[in-house]
């Protein structure tokens, strides 16, 4: 058998469904997911401003959604997306500057991002809902 005809057994690329989840890959996917959510959230922010420029009655209808259970979940989730994408975005900017590429650094910065974004979200919920 010639070299050209020999079957090649190249390594397959790691498909998501057989790929063991790691902190680094999970955070990477979450960065994109929160980015998509925030793009929608940005449109919602614009709609909020437009409603505020309308009459009090029109704004009241919009505000009724914001203070409903669904609205609270939506806005609370939005805040988590903001904090997560902000923290992990800063992590990405450090990588862009060539800092923190060692595996242990990538894990350490990853856990810092998880801790800071969760803490900020919890504080935001407590203050936002006037629980204290």
């Amino acid at each position: 058998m010639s070299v050209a005809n020999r079957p090649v057994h190249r390594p397959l690329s790691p498909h998501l469904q057989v790929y063991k989840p790691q902190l680094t890959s999970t955070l990477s996917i979450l960065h994109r997911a929160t980015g998509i959510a925030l793009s929608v959230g940005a449109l919602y922010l614009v709609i909020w401003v437009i409603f505020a420029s309308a009459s009090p009655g029109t704004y009241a209808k919009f505000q009724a959604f914001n203070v409903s259970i669904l609205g609270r979940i939506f806005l609370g989730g939005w805040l988590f997306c903001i904090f997560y994408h902000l923290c992990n975005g800063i992590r990405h900017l450090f990588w862009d500057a060539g800092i923190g590429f060692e595996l242990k650094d990538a894990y350490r910065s990853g856990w810092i991002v998880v801790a800071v974004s969760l803490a900020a979200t919890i504080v935001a919920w407590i203050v936002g809902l006037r629980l204290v």
Partner: protein
Amino acid sequence: MNSDLRTPLSRARGLGSARQGVHHWWAQRITAVALIPLVVWFAISLIMLSGADYAVVRAWIGSPVVMVLLTLTIVIGLHHGQLGMQEVVEDYVHGEGLKLTLIVLLRFTAVFFGLAAIVAILRIGFGG
């Protein structure tokens, strides 16, 4: 034969296959850096405004500093979002026609919503 006297590296540097080089990447980073202080300010404001009524929200949006910062947050945020969403489309949408359509729609949406936000903010600030 290639009649261009420049080396392949010199032709490729800063250009890329689309002749735009690193423009998209760079714009994404610049908007990201700008958004760091703006988003921190906006998130804190949002938390403080939680449950605020019509008059309070309008007084907040209409103050000069907020008008500037909120416009910056929305315009730069929409730009950053559009750049990111374009990347998502380029990664997952493989039909050229649909891909181009979506990229154009993303741009149109960002510009439309950005302009609508500016008009609304000015209307509140200048009492329209």
